[in-house]
C-alpha cells in the first residue's frame, strides 16, 4: 500500500524518468526495523497491520493524498480521545465545573500532551519527507522559522491590515479567483513537530479502534492517557470563593456558611497562623489555614468548594466497561445540575 503511495507521490513530483529509483528496504513497512520495533513497543496486536502504522506516520503536509496520509485517522482518533476523556472525567467527577473540565481535558489530550506521549513512545521524525525516508519515521513538512501558527495564521493583527492598501473594488469576475489563488499561495505549508506528533498519536488510537476493537482502543486509552498523573484539585481558580460558597449553600438549601476560628497561634507575633473552618450550621464544609484571618477564611471556602465540586461517586461505570461485561443493563451515570452562577 505504501509502495503504491510512494509511486503516486513519485508521479506527482514528476522526476522526469519513467524508471523508478531504487528505494532502500527500510522504505517498505515490512522491512523497516524502526516501524516493527515501534509496533512491538506499543504492544499493538498482530491484527494492527504495519501498513496502517506507516500511514499513521505520514502527515498531510508530506503526502497530500488523503488515501495515504493520516488526516482521516487523526480526525477519528481526535473524536475518540475527546469522547473517552469526557466520559472518564464526567463519570469520575460529575460536578466538575465546565471550565475545569476543559482544563482537565487539555491536560490529558491537548496537542502538547500528546506530543509528550509520542516522544515517550520513542517516535523519531524525519528531517525532510523525501522518498527514501525510513517508513518508521514521522514524515511531515516543517514550519519555516517565523511562520505564524495557531490563531495568528487566520487572523491578521490590526497593524498589518492598517498598513495594507485597501483592495480596489472591481466588477471583474476573475478578481475573486485571483484573490483565492493569492490566499492559497499565502497558506502556510508545514506543521510544527508537536502537532505532527500529536496527530500520529491520535491516528494510532484510530488504528486500534478500526483494526482491533473499540474495547481495545479504550484499554489503550486507559493505559497511555488516563494513567498519566494529573491533580485535578490544582486546576481550580475561584474568583470569589466566599461568595461562591454562600451562593452554593443557598442553591442547595444548606444553612448559610459561617467562618469559625478553630485554632490560632501568635496573633500578635510576626508569623501568626490561623485555622478557620467554613461551617454550614453544625457541619464543617471545609478548613483552611493562613497568616491572616481573611486568608484562612478564603482558604476554608476554597476547600469547601473543592469538596463539593470534586465529589466522586463510589460506583463509577463507563459505558465501555458495561459493554465488556455483557448482558448487564445500561445504567446511566450520576449527572449533576452544574456549577453555581455567581
Amino acid at each position, binding site marked *: 500500500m505504501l509502495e503504491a503511495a510512494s509511486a503516486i507521490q513519485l508521479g506527482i513530483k514528476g522526476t522526469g524518468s519513467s524508471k523508478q529509483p531504487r528505494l532502500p528496504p527500510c522504505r517498505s513497512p515490512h522491512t523497516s*526495523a*524502526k516501524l*516493527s*520495533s515501534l*509496533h*512491538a*513497543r*506499543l*504492544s499493538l496486536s498482530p491484527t494492527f497491520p504495519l501498513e496502517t502504522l506507516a500511514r499513521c506516520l505520514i502527515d498531510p503536509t508530506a503526502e497530500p493524498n488523503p488515501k495515504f496520509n493520516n488526516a482521516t485517522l487523526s480526525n477519528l482518533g481526535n473524536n475518540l480521545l475527546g469522547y473517552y476523556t469526557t466520559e472518564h472525567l464526567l463519570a469520575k467527577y460529575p460536578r466538575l*465545573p465546565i*471550565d*475545569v*473540565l*476543559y*482544563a*482537565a481535558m*487539555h*491536560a*490529558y489530550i*491537548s496537542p*502538547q*500532551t500528546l506530543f*509528550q*506521549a509520542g*516522544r*515517550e*513512545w*520513542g517516535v523519531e521524525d524525519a528531517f525532510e519527507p523525501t522518498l527514501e525516508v525510513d517508513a*518508521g519515521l514521522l514524515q511531515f513538512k516543517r514550519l519555516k522559522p517565523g511562520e505564524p501558527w495557531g490563531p495568528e495564521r487566520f487572523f491578521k493583527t490590526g497593524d498589518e491590515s492598517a498598513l495594507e492598501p485597501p483592495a480596489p473594488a472591481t466588477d471583474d469576475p476573475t478578481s475573486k479567483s485571483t484573490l483565492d489563488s493569492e490566499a492559497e499561495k499565502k497558506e502556510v505549508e508545514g506543521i510544527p513537530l508537536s502537532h505532527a506528533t500529536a496527530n500520529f498519536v491520535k491516528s494510532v488510537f484510530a488504528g486500534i479502534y478500526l483494526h482491533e476493537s473499540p474495547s481495545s482502543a479504550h484499554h*489503550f486509552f*486507559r*493505559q*497511555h492517557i*488516563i*494513567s*498519566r*498523573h*494529573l*491533580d485535578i484539585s*490544582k*486546576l*481550580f*481558580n*475561584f*474568583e*470569589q470563593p466566599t461568595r*461562591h460558597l454562600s451562593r452554593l449553600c443557598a442553591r442547595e438549601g444548606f444553612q448559610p456558611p459561617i467562618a469559625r476560628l*478553630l*485554632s490560632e*497561634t501568635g496573633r500578635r507575633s510576626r508569623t501568626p*497562623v490561623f*485555622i478557620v473552618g467554613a461551617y454550614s450550621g453544625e457541619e464543617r464544609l471545609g478548613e483552611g*489555614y493562613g497568616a491572616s484571618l481573611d486568608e484562612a477564611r478564603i482558604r476554608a471556602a476554597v476547600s469547601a*468548594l473543592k469538596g463539593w*465540586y470534586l465529589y466522586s461517586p463510589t460506583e463509577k461505570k463507563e459505558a465501555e466497561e458495561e459493554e465488556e461485561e455483557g448482558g448487564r443493563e445500561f445504567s446511566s451515570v450520576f449527572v449533576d445540575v452544574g*456549577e*453555581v*452562577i*455567581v
Partner: protein
Amino acid sequence: MSVQGLRTISKARNGFAGFILQCKRLEFNYCDWAGSSGGMNAFLTHDLPKFAKANPQIEMVVSPRPHKHPIIRGVYINGREKVICVRNLHHQQILEQANLLKNSSGLKLKKINKPVASVNESVRGIFSPFHGVKHEV
C-alpha cells in the same frame, strides 16, 4: 466566570498501566580482522537472531567498525546513549552486556536513598500542631 480552569499538562507514569521499554535501539559494531572482535562475531552469528526475536521492541543495528574494538551502543527514549566496549569478551558475556543495556532506563546512574518515590500526596497528610488532642504540659 466564577471559576476558571488552569491549563497544565499531565505527567507520564511509565509502568503504571502501560509499559514502554526505554531502550529503543541497540547498535552492534564489529571488525572482521581484529582478534578482539572474535567473541562479537560469534555473538552476531549465534546469539543475536535469538536475542532480536526475544526483544522485538528494540531496533537492532549491526555495522562494521574496522580496526577498532567491538562496541555495543544502546540508544534510549530520553535521548541518551550508553556504550559498552566488549573487546576480547566471550559471546556469552556479550549477551550479558546486551541484556544490561536493554534493561537500563537510559538515565544517569544515581544513588537511590528513599525506598519509594511518588508523585502522589501523602495519604496521612502533613503533621499539624493545631489539630488532634492538645498537648498538656
